[in-house]
């Protein structure tokens, strides 16, 4: 699968989708004008990836900010990896947040109350 690298802007995140390395990474800010059109290609890539995944998948979220419309997309992404993990594949989600950003830490914890997937919390 081709590596997808999207450079972030003031309202869209940096995205790295690398099947060879099993790395799926989002960083920066996410408040795109049209969440659907921004995330649709990402979700399509992930759908294809979980058909023939790497032996180890690492999903990294290192976001400074995301709006509520993006929060649903993040949930959808996590659900794909919950399925992958349930099928016995090795998956690790890393949720990073700025040291003083309690809301971002809480947002991560909330996702992991909904989605059953191995995860780690990191502050930076």
């Amino acid at each position, binding site marked *: 699968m081709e590596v997808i690298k999207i450079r972030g802007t003031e309202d869209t995140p940096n995205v790295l989708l690398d099947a060879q390395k099993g790395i799926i990474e989002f960083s920066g800010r996410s408040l795109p004008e049209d969440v659907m059109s921004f995330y649709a290609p990402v979700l399509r890539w992930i759908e294809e990836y979980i058909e023939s995944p790497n032996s180890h998948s690492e999903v990294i979220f290192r976001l400074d900010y995301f709006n509520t419309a993006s929060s*649903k997309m993040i*949930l959808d992404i996590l659900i794909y990896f919950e399925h992958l993990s349930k099928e016995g594949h090795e998956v690790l989600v890393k949720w990073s947040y700025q040291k003083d950003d309690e809301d971002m830490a809480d947002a991560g914890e909330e996702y992991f109350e909904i989605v059953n997937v191995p995860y780690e919390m990191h502050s930076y």
Partner: protein
Amino acid sequence: MDKFDYKELVYSFHKEMLANNFTLVYEGEITHQITKAFTSLAENKMDSYSEDSTMKKKVFHVMVECLQNLSKHAEDVRILKNKGYSGNGIFIIGRVGQNNEDYHVLTGNVIENSRVPELEAFLDKINQMNKDGLKELYKKQMREGTLSDKGGAGLGLIDIARKTGEKLDYNFIKIDDERSFYTLRTKISRK
């Protein structure tokens, strides 16, 4: 020259803004570009007096959700060619509190009367909930709420209530048999 007395009008707008401690007042089309411009204006301003980062994030968050509500849910929403959505409304941000240490965001837009009962019920439901209730509602809405093609899912209002810890202060002013003016005031307090 016409007799239009702009001096008095401009001066009175100026005085009103100062008296109410409004830092930004805008009436008109709300687009994504406007949202980006206003949030970066507010961020720069808050940076200029080294506003606390938690406050900054909260203000930014409330501004984004309020502006997106206006751009996506206002009555006269138009779908712009390749430019997303735009709606009309009024957007105000100002300072409040004893020493002007807090912020508030005020919005207003026209909605159809037929949409009022549902919106009002939803706002009341949010206001009756405590912190844990809101958290569960947000999770439920995220799981079950289908994201409409406009990206709504009602998450914005729940999120505003959660991030600020304040009740949603709203009103509906009847314009005529068809339309009402919906106002919302969100306070962001230093806690």
